[in-house]
């Protein structure tokens, strides 16, 4: 299983007027690809805070006191906001509890769906162009260095040629893209027209016909509509233009046939524009008249013989050379990292020393990154910002601790003074909100160690690298970036995609709905829209924060089914936050039960429902009726503890009728029950008295087992 997200020892507090509220204390869990983890707990247990720290949207008064959230080699707690822009909503998306408040009330649904797509399309174009130019320059430099027997001018010429025919390739592809876009727009306009004709509501038939005709005529002779179909399309467009008002049926027929024609044209195989670009640029003769497959083969041979084989060989040398140079630098970096560890292991760090160390380390690491590698090593790339923010937060912590200790001392003195005068103040002294410096220093060391481990692994695997493959991948990378730089996301395309998404999440008549406002939707439909928006960027991880709490049973079932369906289709990893254990059984692979900022029980859903071990899980389960419950429900007495003064022992001890004496004195560690199941309660200690779960749960588990046997037998 591929690990998507690792949360390790996450600790988050909030600074409030009454002191420091410890919202999340030491939360650790993993999320694998295509898996759902459910976080269950009462309100105020810190489940939403956990999810918000993953997305980096904590409130301003929040302090991340330690821990790390590793996604794709990056620690999300330490990367800069700029880097977060590439992750938030794009790789990790979120569905909020209340669909009405997470949609903009004065913006049409369609616009809300397409807004991000269009903005992102532009950003990607820019990024791709930049990437292409810098990488080519770099390659040129290393080619010269790695191939001393070839004159530099020749290599420069090669790179120039590559750039030139890439440019031709882009030109061809751009015109193809425009034609495809016109075809797509024509299709969507045709759908619109057909819809209106069917509903007998087409008022301006002439405009519609002209619109479709214009769009369709843009698709001729751009490798989209060719040969016979081109002539056919031309006659159809002519007929469409001549349509009269009384002939709406005929118009519908024509539109349908144009639609069929364009659809088949779009489904046709796309010729390889990269190879075609070289041929058109340097061959100085028209393309041979061949079928797409044959043409591709012919062009490939031409390209390889004249240019590519040679270019690839030189590039491979460059890659090899660059890799060996950088590997030796990496070895140096490992040494440097080792040397720097003692600096950060002192009981109290010295700022000047640390900053100097930071500077040398960051410079060395920047030099050691092989930028010709296409699979970017995100540990190394984010090392600089990670180290800087870790060190910053340490020294900021020192400053902050001083200030808050001072404030606390002042208040304490005032309190003592009042007491000494024999008065009884009706206020309490707020405890100083101190940052744990030890944990903060540990964070710095962890950043360093993580890079060290990664580099050691890279060096160990360096013998097995296949440079021939990597060279091809590099060329593909150039091609992909060139294509991306001309791939413009237009309104029409975004609309097309949005309509498809709306269909995917089960919204009927998406064309009509596209133009409506959020208030025109029912609760379930609104939540579907929110899900569609979250899916628009094709994320890896979806965080669902109580997505069905505001909805009723049937709609809830529909939304849960939808989330499950999408998860299976897209191999999504889901973090599902809820207080309703009933919902979880259907959704989750793993369940983490949270109480007072800690995970008290962690296991697969079978573990939690069939053999719960923590008294809090028992309490949650027994306070929820199912269809066969007849006994009095066991409500959990009292309220969760005030997290400004977290209890010394087990936080649940006060409300727990199974509490042992030690529960009030010492926090229980996580006891492992099985490979997948663990719980933090002293009841699992070998010396603890044996306690049975409440009868209501035992009965229910027995019933469930019986039902399971009946179903199987």
């Amino acid at each position, binding site marked *: 299983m591929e690990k998507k997200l690792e949360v390790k020892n996450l600790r988050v507090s909030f600074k409030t007027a009454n002191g420091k509220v410890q919202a999340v204390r030491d939360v650790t869990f993993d999320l694998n690809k295509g898996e759902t983890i459910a976080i269950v707990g*009462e*309100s105020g247990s810190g489940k939403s805070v956990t999810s918000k720290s993953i997305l980096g949207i904590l409130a301003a008064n929040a302090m991340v006191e330690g821990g790390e959230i590793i996604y794709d080699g990056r620690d999300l707690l330490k990367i800069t906001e700029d880097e977060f822009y590439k992750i938030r909503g794009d790789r990790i998306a979120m569905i909020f509890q209340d669909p009405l408040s997470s949609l903009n009330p004065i913006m049409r649904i369609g616009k809300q769906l397409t807004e991000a797509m269009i903005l992102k399309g532009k950003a990607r174009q820019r990024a791709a162009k930049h990437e292409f130019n810098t990488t080519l320059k770099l390659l040129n430099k290393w080619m010269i260095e790695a191939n001393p027997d070839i004159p530099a001018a020749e290599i420069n010429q090669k790179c120039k040629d590559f750039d030139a025919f890439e440019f031709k390739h882009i030109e061809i592809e751009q015109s193809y893209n425009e034609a495809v876009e016109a075809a797509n727009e024509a299709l969507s306009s045709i759908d619109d027209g057909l819809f209106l004709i069917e509903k007998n509501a087409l008022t301006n038939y002439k405009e519609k016909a002209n619109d479709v005709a214009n769009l369709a005529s843009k698709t001729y002779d751009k490798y989209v509509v060719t040969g016979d179909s081109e002539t056919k399309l031309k006659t159809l467009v002519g007929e469409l233009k001549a349509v009269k008002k009384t002939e709406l049926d005929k118009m519908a027929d024509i539109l349908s046939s144009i639609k069929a024609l364009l659809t088949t044209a779009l489904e046709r195989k796309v010729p390889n524009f990269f190879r075609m670009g070289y041929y058109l640029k340097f061959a100085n003769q028209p393309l041979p008249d061949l079928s797409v497959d044959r043409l591709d083969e012919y062009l490939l041979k031409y390209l390889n013989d004249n240019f590519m084989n040679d270019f690839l060989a030189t590039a491979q040398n460059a890659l090899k050379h660059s890799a060996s140079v950088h590997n030796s630098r990496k070895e140096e970096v490992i040494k440097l990292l080792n040397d720097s560890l003692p600096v950060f292991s002192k009981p109290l760090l010295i700022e000047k020393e640390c900053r100097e160390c930071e500077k040398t380390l960051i410079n060395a690491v920047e030099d050691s990154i092989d930028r010709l590698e296409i699979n970017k090593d995100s540990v190394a790339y984010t090392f600089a910002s990670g180290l800087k923010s870790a060190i910053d937060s340490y020294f900021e912590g020192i400053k902050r601790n001083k200030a808050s200790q001072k404030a606390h001392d002042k208040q304490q003195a005032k309190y003592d003074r009042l007491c000494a005068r024999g008065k009884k103040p009706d206020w309490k002294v707020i405890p100083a909100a101190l940052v744990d410096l030890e944990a903060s220093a540990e964070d710095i060391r962890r950043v360093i160690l993580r890079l060290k481990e990664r580099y050691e692994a890279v060096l160990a695997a360096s013998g097995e690298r296949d440079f021939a493959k990597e060279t091809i991948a590099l060329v593909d990378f150039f091609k992909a970036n060139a294509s991306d730089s001309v791939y413009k996301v237009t309104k029409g395309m975004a609309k097309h995609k949005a309509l498809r998404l709306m269909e995917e999440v089960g919204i009927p008549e998406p064309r009509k709905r596209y133009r409506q406002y959020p208030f025109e939707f*029912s*609760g379930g439909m609104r939540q579907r829209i929110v899900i569609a928006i979250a899916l628009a960027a094709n994320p890896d991880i979806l965080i669902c924060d109580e997505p069905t709490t505001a909805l*009723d*049973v*049937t*709609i*809830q*079932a*529909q939304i*849960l*089914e939808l989330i499950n369906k999408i998860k299976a289709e897209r191999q999504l990893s889901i973090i599902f936050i809820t*207080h*309703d*254990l*009933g*919902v*979880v*059984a*259907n959704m989750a692979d793993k369940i983490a039960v949270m109480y007072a900022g800690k995970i008290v029980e962690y296991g697969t*859903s*079978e573990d939690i*429902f*069939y053999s719960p071990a923590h008294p809090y899980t028992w*309490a*949650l*389960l027994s*306070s*929820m*009726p*199912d*269809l066969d*419950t*007849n006994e*009095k*429900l*066991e*409500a*959990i007495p009292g*309220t969760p503890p005030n997290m400004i003064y977290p209890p010394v022992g087990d936080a649940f001890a006060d409300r727990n009728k199974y509490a042992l004496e030690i529960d009030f004195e010492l926090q229980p560690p996580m006891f492992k029950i099985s490979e997948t199941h663990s719980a933090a309660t002293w009841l699992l200690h070998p010396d603890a008295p044996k306690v049975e779960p409440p009868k209501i749960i035992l009965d*229910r588990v027995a019933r*469930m087992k019986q*039902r*399971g046997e009946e*179903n199987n037998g």
Partner: protein
Amino acid sequence: MANNANNNEVLLKVENLCQYFKINKAVDDVSFDIKKGEVFGLVGESGCGKTTTGRSIIKLYDITSGNIYFKGKRICAGTLSYKRAIADAKKKLKQAIEDAKNDPAAAARLPEIKAETAKFITEQKAEMAKAIHDHKNCDKEYAAEATKEVDNKYLPLINSATGEEKARLVEEYKRERNVAKKQRFITQIQMIFQDPIASLDPRMTVRDIIAEGLVIRGETDKKKIDEQVFKVLELVGLVKEHASRYPHEFSGGQRQRIGVARAVIMKPELIIADEPVSALDVSIQAQVINLLNDLRHDLGLTILFIAHDLSVVKYFSDRIGVMYFGKLVELADSDELFKNPLHPYTKSLLSAIPLPDPAYEKQRTRIVYNPLAEHDYSKEGPTLREVKPGHFVYCNTEEFNKYVSELKD
């Protein structure tokens, strides 16, 4: 927790209740009885009219048509059915006159028909007047009766008493009479609302919130009010000290307890609980349900429980009515309903309940209800029919026979 009330005394009787908002038929021809001491659950998806039903019963809306009887007395009545009957009769008469022009035989019968229609219309108008009178005056009459009772009780005593005793009695008589005069019959039905935050006035203390009903009823003795408030606070599991606080100082579960206390202090016989636990955390949900259960046993309350969480409804109710788009589609004992759901909508609703059982959940398939595909009402329209003693389903004859045979298998 089903506790089948054995007595058959009907506390609330809803007869052909219709509640239309312009063209929107929020509740359409709904009839059911609630027996004394039972919990009657009303379920359905949002927008199906269950909350409107509850609000119509407590006279928050003037109903369009139908009757509602509480303790045998008509408290709500609508007029649409009478108006329709009169219009129909007039139409028939018109038709008869049309016919009479060509047909001498019909012409001969015409005077007879005319007289009949005129009689029918006067009857209907009288009924309608009665309905309007009952709808408007049931509270007034109740207050008049209560005042009379107080008069009967105190006047002889006052007449026979003398001196200080007399002064005290007069004082007491005045207070009691004041209370009796402001008595409303409808206060014997109380409501608990869904959202404990929105339903409590943030600028009133808990004492004021709970005592508001008493004050409106004319209670002026502060000591007596305090006494009752403290008693009811204890009853719902809060303490005396809470009385001087404001709602925002309480947790969700405690707030809902205040809502319950506000209803209970009026000594109601029927409580309409409109989704009282839907907005609460699971653990607090259990507290509130347990509280309602205890109160029901201690005070002998009858509860109309409106919710969409079927596990909770099943746990709490004796009988359950399922509503779909303003119609009551199925009505049965809660065990019976979950064992033998007959109406396809009930089946679909039951199949949507998530259970805390992963193995079961992985194979649960939701049944989708499509009214157009399920029913063919082109030949015969559906009505609420009794398929089995106590088990009613909204169906036509063909479906009725199908359901009966289904039950036999």
